[in-house]
C-alpha cells in the first residue's frame, strides 16, 4: 500500500530547477535544436514515436530533448501528451505494398522483383568508431551525383512482398482475411486474455524494443523454436488515408515512415493443410528494424496454439508477454518504488520486530544454543 506523503515542496521545486540546469548543460555551448535532433538523432526520435505510439517527429524530438536523451522518459512524455488530444477517428489500413521504399531486403530470395535495396543501413559496417565525427563531421558529406543510380534504374517499380511470391505457389499460409470487423483497440477498452491477433499486434507495436529483442532472441535459442527467416524487411514512406466523418469522403493526410518485417517460419501443416511456411509480422513507426524483426519473431511464437505447437516457452505465454511489454507501464510501477513508502515500511518493521519477539519468547533455549555455536 502506498500512503501519500506531504511536504518537501521547496526541495521539489529546487530539484526541478536543478534538473532544468543539468539538462541544459554548459551554457557556453549552443542549445540543441529540435530540427537537429530530428535530423541527426533520427533513430532515437523514431523509437520514441514507435513506443510512444504517436507519430509526430517534432514532438518526439522535443521529448528526447526534455528527457535529456532518456528514451523511456521521452516515451512517457509522449504518452502523457496524447491523452490531452481528442480522437478524430481511424485511418484506413496503411498499404505497405505502395511504399516509397528507402530500404528493402530479403534473406530468403536473392533475386526478387524490385531488387534488394540496402538503403541507409548499419548492416555490413565494421562497427569501428569514426573519430572524424568527433571533430569536423565531414563524413556525412557525400558526393550526391556519384551516389545516385541512373534515372532509368531508379524508375518506380512494383515491389511485391516476398510473402505474396510464396503465396502464389501456396507454399505459405495466407494472412487472416479482412472480414470487415473493427479491430480491438487497447487504448479504448481494457484487455482481457486470451486476445486475438490484431490485439497482440497493437500491443507489440508499442512494446519495448529491448524486451521484444530479448524474447525474440529466446525463440532463436530454443525457447519456442520456430526457425525463422527474414522473408522481407522494408522501410519507407506510406500514405495515410482517412475518411473524415463529417466529410464522407476519403482524403490523404500525408505520409508516415514505417518499417515492416515478414518472418517466414516452419511449416508442420495439419490433417487439413499440407505443410507450408507460417509467418510472423512486425510493423513499427519509423526506421526501427530491430524492433520490427523482434516483433515478428514474438508474434509468431504467440501463435503456437493456432498452429498446433507445444507450449512452454516464455515467448509463447500471451498474458506474460503482452502484460509486460509496455515500458511506460513497467517503468511507472518499478520506479514508483523510489517514492516515499514510510508508512508501509513502518508497518513491516513493526511486524518483523513482533515476530522476532514472539520467536524469542517461544524458543529461548534455541536462541542461546545458536548464539553458543
Amino acid at each position, binding site marked *: 500500500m502506498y500512503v501519500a506523503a506531504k511536504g518537501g515542496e521547496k526541495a521539489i521545486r529546487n530539484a526541478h530547477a536543478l534538473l532544468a540546469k543539468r539538462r541544459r548543460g554548459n551554457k557556453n555551448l549552443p542549445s540543441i535544436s529540435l530540427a537537429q535532433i530530428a535530423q541527426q538523432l533520427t533513430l532515437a526520435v523514431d523509437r520514441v514515436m*514507435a513506443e510512444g*505510439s*504517436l*507519430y*509526430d517527429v517534432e514532438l518526439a524530438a522535443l521529448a528526447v530533448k526534455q528527457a535529456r536523451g532518456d528514451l523511456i522518459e521521452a516515451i512517457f512524455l509522449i504518452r502523457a501528451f496524447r491523452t490531452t*488530444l*481528442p*480522437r*478524430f477517428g481511424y*485511418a*484506413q489500413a*496503411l498499404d*505497405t*505494398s505502395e511504399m*516509397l521504399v*528507402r530500404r528493402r531486403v530479403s534473406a530468403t530470395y*536473392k*533475386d526478387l522483383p524490385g531488387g*534488394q*535495396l*540496402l*538503403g541507409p543501413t548499419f548492416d555490413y559496417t565494421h562497427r569501428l568508431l569514426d573519430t572524424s565525427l568527433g571533430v569536423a563531421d565531414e563524413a556525412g558529406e557525400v558526393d*550526391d551525383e556519384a*551516389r*545516385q*543510380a541512373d534515372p532509368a*534504374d*531508379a*524508375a*518506380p517499380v512494383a515491389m511485391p*512482398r516476398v*510473402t*505474396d511470391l510464396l503465396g502464389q505457389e501456396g507454399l505459405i499460409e*495466407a*494472412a*487472416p*482475411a*479482412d472480414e470487415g470487423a473493427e*479491430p*480491438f483497440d*487497447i487504448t479504448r477498452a481494457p484487455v482481457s486474455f486470451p486476445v486475438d*491477433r*490484431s*490485439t497482440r*499486434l*497493437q500491443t507489440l*507495436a*508499442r512494446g519495448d524494443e529491448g524486451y521484444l529483442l530479448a524474447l525474440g532472441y529466446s525463440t532463436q535459442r530454443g525457447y519456442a523454436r520456430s526457425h525463422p527467416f527474414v522473408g522481407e524487411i522494408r522501410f519507407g*514512406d506510406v500514405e*495515410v488515408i482517412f475518411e*473524415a466523418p463529417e466529410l464522407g469522403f476519403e*482524403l*490523404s493526410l*500525408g*505520409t*508516415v515512415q514505417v518499417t*515492416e518485417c*515478414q518472418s517466414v517460419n516452419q511449416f508442420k501443416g495439419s490433417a487439413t493443410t499440407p505443410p507450408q511456411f507460417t509467418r510472423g*509480422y512486425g510493423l513499427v*513507426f519509423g526506421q526501427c528494424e530491430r524492433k520490427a524483426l523482434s516483433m515478428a519473431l514474438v508474434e509468431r511464437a504467440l501463435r503456437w496454439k493456432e498452429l498446433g505447437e507445444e507450449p512452454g516457452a516464455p515467448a509463447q505465454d500471451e498474458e506474460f508477454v503482452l502484460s509486460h511489454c509496455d515500458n511506460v507501464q513497467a517503468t511507472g510501477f518499478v520506479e514508483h518504488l523510489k517514492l516515499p513508502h514510510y508508512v508501509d515500511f513502518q508497518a513491516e518493521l513493526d511486524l518483523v520486530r513482533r515476530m522476532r519477539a514472539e520467536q524469542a519468547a517461544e524458543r529461548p533455549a534455541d536462541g542461546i544454543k545458536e548464539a553458543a555455536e
Partner: protein
Amino acid sequence: MALMARAEAGELEAVLAGFAPLPAASDLKPPEVGLVMLRGRTGGDGAPFNLGEATVSRAAVRLEGGASGFAYRLGRDVKAARAAAILDALWQDEARRAEVDAALAPVRARLAAEAAQVRAETAATKVDFFTLVRGED
C-alpha cells in the same frame, strides 16, 4: 487535397498570397489538433489492426460569398491547416480551380523531385548477391 496535406506551411502561405486580396474567411469550426489512429494489416494484406496514433490538424472555413473548404493534415500546424482549408474553398469554385492547381504546381514538382531523389539514392544501394559453390565435395 493530397498536395495541400503535403505542402509545407510556407508554401501554402505563398500560394495564398498569390490570390490576394482574399475574401474574408470565417471558421465553420475552430482549427483544431487531434489524433487519428493509424492501422496496419496482419501480414501486410490481411485483417486490420490498430498500429498507433498520429497528430492531425484540421480546419473548416467558409469564404465570404463563396464556398466552404476543409483540410486535414498530419502534424500540429493548425495555421497551415487553415491555409489549406482556404485553398480548398477557392478550389471548390469552378472558375478558380485551374488557377489553384497551377499555383500548387511547384509543390507537386518539389514532392516529385524529392521522391525521385530518394529512389535514385536507394537504387544506388541495390545489391546483387550471389551464392558461392561450396568446395567440400
